[in-house]
């Protein structure tokens, strides 16, 4: 900017290089400008991310009940969480189960709904809105609604199932059905995937379909050889972000377990999460339970770090495969 104002500024190509101090001043100024614009995030990143991450590592080697001073215990917390803690296995299993089943079904269902919407000729607006709205329902509200709809006593769904003679499951009250019920809830909120698949499907060039039709391709062949190759990046994106989201799966599982257990509690009351039979206990819930109910800070921090390592592994994979997240420009 000062270069622009400088009076005897010559044409750049023929010019002698600007004097070194001037150039350096310009660079310093640019660097300060960049730092200035980035400063909110630089502060936020160090204070609200860097610090707690380091502190989590520190506490993972400490015995700390949040009252007495922390004391160093070496690897005891790590050994306890990884080898002795009874709930670690179920929590990890449930989280992995949800990551595999929920993500797979959501992607398939989302793609199906996306395809369906692009085929609809009349009332597109109505159908699109109907399919999208549940995604907007706040998770707690949606979960409360589903616990009611699916409750074995007076829920309308079991009422309807019994009326047509289908044996009604116990849904959130049955250890075998609790996770599938959560999956059902997540399929109800498919709106986000529907929209990105819809956008991807509409981007497939129409001429390719016409060319395939001329070659006598049927519906499946058209999907397999025209649609699929051009939407693979979006499918990949949906899978990876789905995995990341599902590893954080917390609110719905917690609220469903609490409400279905029927224990008359307010929030804040100590109750072992994961009703029924730890079937809805996820890793994030266990972190909460260890840190804020049992005040076992050390073990909670170990579990946090386990979650962190898994999340980082997935994120690295995501950026390697460039599932649409990090543009290839620079």
């Amino acid at each position, binding site marked *: *900017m000062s270069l622009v104002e400088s009076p005897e500024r010559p044409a750049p190509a023929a010019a002698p290089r600007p004097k070194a101090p001037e150039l350096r001043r310009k660079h310093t100024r640019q660097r300060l400008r*960049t730092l200035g*614009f980035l400063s*909110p*995030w630089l*502060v*936020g*990143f160090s*204070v609200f*991310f860097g610090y707690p991450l380091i502190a*989590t590592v520190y*506490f993972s080697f400490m015995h700390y009940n*949040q009252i007495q001073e922390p004391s160093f215990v070496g690897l005891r917390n790590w050994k306890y969480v990884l080898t002795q803690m009874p709930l670690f296995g179920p929590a990890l299993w449930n989280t992995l189960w949800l990551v595999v089943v929920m993500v797979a079904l959501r992607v398939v269902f989302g793609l199906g709904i996306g395809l369906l919407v692009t085929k*609809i*000729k*009349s*009332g*597109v607006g109505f*159908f699109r809105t*109907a399919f999208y*709205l549940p995604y*907007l329902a706040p*998770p*707690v509200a*949606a979960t*409360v*609604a*589903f616990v*009611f709809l699916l409750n074995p006593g*007076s*829920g*309308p769904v079991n009422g309807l199932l019994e009326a047509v003679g289908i044996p009604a499951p116990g849904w959130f009250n049955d250890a075998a059905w609790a996770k599938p019920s959560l999956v059902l809830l997540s399929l*109800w909120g498919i709106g986000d995937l529907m*929209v*990105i698949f819809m*956008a*991807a499907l509409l981007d497939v060039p129409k001429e390719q379909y016409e060319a395939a039709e001329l070659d006598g391709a049927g519906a499946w062949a058209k999907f397999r050889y025209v649609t699929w190759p051009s939407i693979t990046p*979006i499918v990949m994106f949906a899978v990876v*972000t789905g995995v*990341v989201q599902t590893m*954080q799966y*917390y*609110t719905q599982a*917690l609220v469903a377990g609490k409400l279905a257990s*029927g224990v008359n509690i307010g*929030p*804040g009351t100590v109750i072992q999460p994961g009703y029924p039979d730890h079937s809805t206990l996820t890793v994030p819930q266990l*972190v*909460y339970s260890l*840190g*804020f109910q049992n005040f076992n800070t050390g073990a909670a921090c170990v579990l*946090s770090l386990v*979650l962190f390592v898994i999340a980082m592994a*997935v*994120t690295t994979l*995501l*950026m390697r495969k460039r599932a*649409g*997240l990090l*543009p290839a420009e620079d």
Partner: protein
Amino acid sequence: MTTTPLRAGGAPARTGSTDRGPAAARARRKRLLHWIAVHAVAIATALFFVLPFVFVFLTSVMSDDQAMSGELWPHEWNWSNYATVFSTPGFLDWWKNSLMYAGLGTLFTVCSAIPVAYALAKFRFRGRRTAMVLVISTMMLPPQVIVIPMYLVWAQQLHLSGSLWPLLIPMAFGDAYSIFLLRQFLLTIPQEYLESAKVDGCGEVRTLLRIVVPMAKPGIAAVALFQFFYCWNDYFGPQIYAAQNPAAWTLSYGLESFKSAHSVNWNLTMAATLLVMAPVIIVFFFAQKAFVEGVTLTGVKG
């Protein structure tokens, strides 16, 4: 995208009087069957999405006894259930807190994300790619990973637990997801606009405020909406920091205690549930375009 001309009845129109003969009739019949099949599937699927809302609504106006009966249609319409919900102690406070959390949270996030996203999108500097990688990494991180030390700081050193400030203050320092989304949007602004602003003598700040922000309105709207919804829906945050102080609860958090306090009154719980859903859905209808723009931005661009 609809190319088939439609008749009032909804069935595809005949394409012209030249369409005669058995082959054309077969093609027409096939098209009609296809139309029927697609829409039958669509209607069946729509039921799966819509019926939960319908059942929740119907239950919300039932009498206390009927709500436990498993019947589907209300005998009498007790609109007073909604009044009862509103007069529940605390419910209006939860509304106020949710509005404050979502409103201030959105304001803080947008204001802090704009300059960061602009720098990441348009400045060339060493470490830019690293910064992007770090932004994406924080975005992907489960909030539970860092919550314990953060809680200890807010509760034991700053004595701010029992309020929503430990959730709001960090939002003034750049939320990773918002920065990422906004950056994706800002990448689409052609460099020429920025350069011509600079030729006209605008500094970076003026360029950002006068040129970039007006052009990025759709992106900013999408980010603001997402953040508003995130705060409105947040359960984990208020659970950590506001649990011990019911006066600081938000709707999303209080709803669960509402259910516990009215454990047998499914009708009241369903009315409260609808009242928690309603603002989000109303906002959606007013801002549909910005919203869909935002969702596609997450997946398609880049």
